[in-house]
């Protein structure tokens, strides 16, 4: 493999950084054969597990083209199933392992492929990302539902905790020895499978050329099923091996996927040997940090943040993404392009304000009773919707995926705490937004170089990095000091963060935000964003600077999220790091996309759904709904394989023709009916006036274009 200068620079920088970090945080613990040896044993064990998980990721990605964000969650789920069989039902280990790894996991993979993944082929990347992230939340929700309550689960290592053998004075437990052997064995098997067997060679060819593979006689359907079965099994192996090391905790095991991303990114998501190398670097690096370094309080998560940092470095060292010239023509349903007029947005906003004012005033008693603590729920809903709005221009219009909206929101909340926490002055909200914008621009740094999947990965790394290294600093959020955020002072009012006045304030802010965004969409900025979404290459050849455009849209998005975060801070009154984690941010992204990421109205849909899940769970109290707030968004996102447009599009299509001033929507509906009739009548369109365009189309169709001179008399005669 050839390394580019950027690769060397990245490696040199990483090594230099590692040395500086080590020197600064050296713990002074003795360095001896024994300590280094035991560090290596644990490190290599961890690396082996990451390698197994990551190789599942790579196999699925190279053969099916789908990047499985749920790889860690699947491993977590199968580890739980194993634990249930082995320790709750006391099955013998070989049978439990055999059943999970060789039967249940592959079967689960095949079912997933059949029901979900196959439908993703050829769909936009955003959809693929959302569906597998939805799957990740789905598995988490499922595990949390099935095995609730008993948190202190204990997965015993194979052959007990003690046992093992001595190697150079270092004790190697049988579990770790097994783990390393399994990884080596799997590496060899995968190599043989992919390079020596016919089916393996076919698997590697699928992504490059689907049609070519079918020529070689291999059935792509079977191959993709096989890849998912294999991926799921590898996830299960990794999950079962890591559970005794890290504990059976849903979130922890799910986030193993971030470690796997980092390892796979080293192999550019393709090369298994490099992926194994990356996994080892990670495992040993993490264990080195735990063994020999001591980090001051705020950085105590540094070892867990290592994969995130590695991922970020690798992703930045990747070669600049090529501007793809690929052709963009596609059939659309709407013939007339209607951009929502400001008046419509304003009307909708007003209607929303009226509804919220009357509801929060107790004028709709049923709703209030049913939702319990109604007003505070409403506050949560509106704040979520405002944070979701931040993704509408970014992901919906400019096509930039971002899984870190909550990191921006958290940053905004912290900024508000710092600048106006005691006074609660409203200008602090604007300051929070302004100060968060540069952080967004920072996030645009990878976006400028990367596209699609890599950007999504970078944003996850970003969110996780903020979670582990930024919010934990006592200078950022001092959880111990009990800093409180005062209630909001706005135009002479004092609005309590859980009160009705605040809810109405938020509703007005949201409505204004929607109107503002629609205005932005209709401005040259909005047009430019949609242009880079549709074709970066064409946009650049018109003189549009992609860097500048992306920096602006990321900045605006971050500012909106930061504003929303500040509002959240006022509601919560106190901040703590666990409010802004990567995992908590995912449902926000998913529910917005389910609503239809290009529409501000979807943010309201997403906000409503966020609290609806909580309310349903509380009111019904059924035990199988106990994890609905993650299961719900997850399953809704997975269901997008069936309806890719997003819910609000359909709602809008059904609802808008009923509005008296939407003549155009009625027209569109009529056109829709007419064009569905067209199939019956044939392509000639004889039920409509026959225009010159029709004649031309017909000529082209019949291939007689050049035989017939264009006669003006053929023009619009109103039928033949």
């Amino acid at each position, binding site marked *: 493999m050839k390394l580019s200068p950027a690769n060397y620079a990245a490696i040199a920088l990483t090594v230099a950084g590692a040395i500086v970090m080590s020197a600064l945080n050296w713990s002074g613990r003795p360095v001896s054969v024994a300590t280094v040896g035991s560090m290596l044993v644990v490190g290599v064990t961890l690396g082996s597990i990451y390698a197994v998980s990551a190789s599942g990721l790579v196999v699925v990605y190279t053969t099916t083209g789908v990047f499985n964000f749920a790889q860690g969650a699947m491993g977590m789920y199968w580890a739980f199933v194993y634990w249930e069989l082995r320790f709750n039902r006391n099955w013998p280990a070989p049978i439990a392992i055999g059943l999970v790894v060789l039967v249940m996991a592959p079967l689960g993979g095949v079912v997933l492929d059949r029901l979900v993944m196959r439908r993703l082929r050829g769909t936009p990347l955003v959809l693929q990302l959302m569906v597998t992230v939805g799957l990740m939340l789905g598995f988490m929700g499922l595990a949390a539902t099935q095995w609730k309550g008993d948190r202190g689960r204990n997965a015993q290592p194979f052959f007990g905790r003690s046992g093992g053998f001595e190697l150079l004075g270092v004790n190697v437990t049988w579990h770790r020895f097994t783990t390393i052997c399994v990884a080596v064995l799997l590496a060899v098997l995968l190599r043989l499978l992919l390079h020596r067997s016919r089916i393996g060679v076919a698997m590697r060819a699928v992504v490059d050329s689907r049609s070519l593979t079918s020529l070689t006689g291999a059935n792509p359907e079977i191959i993709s099923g096989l890849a998912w079965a294999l991926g799921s099994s590898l996830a299960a192996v990794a999950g079962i091996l890591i559970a005794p090391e890290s504990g059976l905790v849903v979130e922890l095991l799910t986030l193993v996927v971030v470690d796997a991303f980092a390892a796979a990114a080293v192999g550019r998501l393709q090369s298994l040997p490099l992926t194994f190398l990356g996994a080892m670097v990670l495992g040993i690096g993490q264990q080195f940090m735990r063994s020999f370094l001591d980090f001051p309080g705020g950085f105590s998560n540094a070892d867990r943040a290592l994969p995130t940092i590695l991922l970020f470095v690798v992703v930045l060292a990747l070669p600049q993404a090529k501007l793809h010239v690929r052709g963009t023509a596609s059939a659309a349903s709407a013939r007339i392009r209607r951009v929502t007029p400001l008046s419509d947005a304003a009307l909708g906003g007003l209607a929303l304000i009226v509804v919220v004012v009357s509801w929060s005033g107790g004028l709709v008693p049923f709703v209030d009773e049913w939702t319990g603590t109604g007003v505070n729920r409403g506050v949560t809903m509106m704040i979520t919707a405002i944070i979701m709005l931040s993704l509408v221009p970014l992901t919906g219009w400019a096509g930039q995926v971002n899984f870190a909206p909550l990191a921006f929101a958290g940053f905004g909340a912290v900024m508000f705490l710092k600048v106006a926490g005691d006074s609660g002055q409203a200008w602090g909200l604007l300051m929070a937004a302004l100060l968060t914008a540069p952080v967004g621009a920072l996030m645009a740094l990878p976006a400028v170089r990367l596209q699609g999947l890599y950007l999504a990965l970078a944003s996850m790394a970003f969110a996780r990095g903020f979670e582990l290294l930024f919010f934990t600093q006592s200078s950022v959020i001092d959880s111990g000091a009990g800093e409180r955020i005062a209630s909001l002072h706005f135009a002479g009012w004092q609005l309590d963060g859980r009160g009705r006045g605040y809810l109405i304030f938020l509703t007005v802010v949201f409505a204004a935000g929607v109107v503002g965004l629609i205005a932005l969409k209709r401005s040259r900025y909005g047009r430019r964003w*949609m242009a880079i979404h549709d074709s970066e290459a*064409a946009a650049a050849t*018109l003189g549009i600077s992609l860097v500048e455009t992306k920096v602006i849209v990321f900045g605006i998005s971050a500012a909106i999220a930061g504003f929303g975060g500040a509002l959240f801070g006022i509601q919560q009154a106190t901040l703590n790091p666990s409010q802004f984690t990567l995992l908590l941010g995912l449902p926000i992204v998913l529910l917005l996309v389910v609503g239809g990421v290009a529409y501000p109205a979807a943010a309201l849909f997403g906000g409503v759904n966020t609290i609806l899940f909580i309310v349903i769970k509380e009111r019904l109290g059924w035990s199988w709904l106990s994890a609905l707030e993650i299961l719900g968004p997850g399953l809704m996102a997975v269901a997008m394989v069936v309806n890719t447009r997003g819910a609000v599009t359909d709602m809008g299509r059904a609802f808008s023709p009923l509005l008296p001033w939407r003549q155009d929507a009625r027209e569109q509906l009529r056109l829709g009916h007419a064009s569905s009739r067209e199939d019956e009548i044939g392509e000639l369109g004889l039920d409509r006036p026959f225009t010159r365009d029709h004649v031309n189309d017909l000529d082209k169709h019949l291939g007689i274009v050049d035989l017939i001179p264009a006669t003006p008399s053929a023009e619009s005669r109103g039928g033949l």
Partner: protein
Amino acid sequence: MALLEATGVTVRFGGLTALDDAGISVEAGQVTGMIGPNGAGKTTFFNVMTGLQDTTAGRVFLDGRDITRLSVHRRARRGIARTFQRIEVFGQLSVLDNVLVAAEMRRRWDRSGPPPHEEARACLERVGIAEIADLSVAALPTGSARLVELARTLATRPRVLLLDEPSSGLNGRETQAMADLLRDLTEDGLAVLLVEHDMSFVMGLCHRINVLSFGEMIASGTPTEVRSDPSVQSAYLGSDHGAVQ
């Protein structure tokens, strides 16, 4: 001096040499043609001149200034515009907005002329698609989408216009209109470089023609010279375009 000039351009994709020491020069006020069999490297050459493709070797000059290292958008701001063989329109936008994006952007480096909206309308008029301004561009047939791309490039007020198979997807009448429009544009001092498979279109329109075959520029001259060049005839022999009449 030529307005746009490329010399010694070499591009390799792995083992395949798509362009091999190829050069071209494009004069202001002329239509220059580039022809060659499928896979000869014509589109790759366009990508090199617009900055979308890195080269192994070679230089590109605009107005005598070396622009080889300039990014795509900076070249565009200096007056290089292009259309694409496989259409690259902005599918979320209306026809008018597709052109408006370009007109608004152009104001960044050249504030002359009418406001963007008027300019965009004028460009649509000029290519003859003003009546479909409000339609969604994604629903258009290929021919009209090509015209949208052309109108969009005009809105940047280019000095050089690179057109990759502009007549494909157009009917006879539209092709004629396209030829007339290109003649008009060159009379205004624009340089046009076009890649085309439609030989009668190329021969009738171009002042000079360059012939590319397997990445090498094998001939260059007036239509008459090129037509009688034996190496051109042999390059086309066996290709599915038939002989050059």
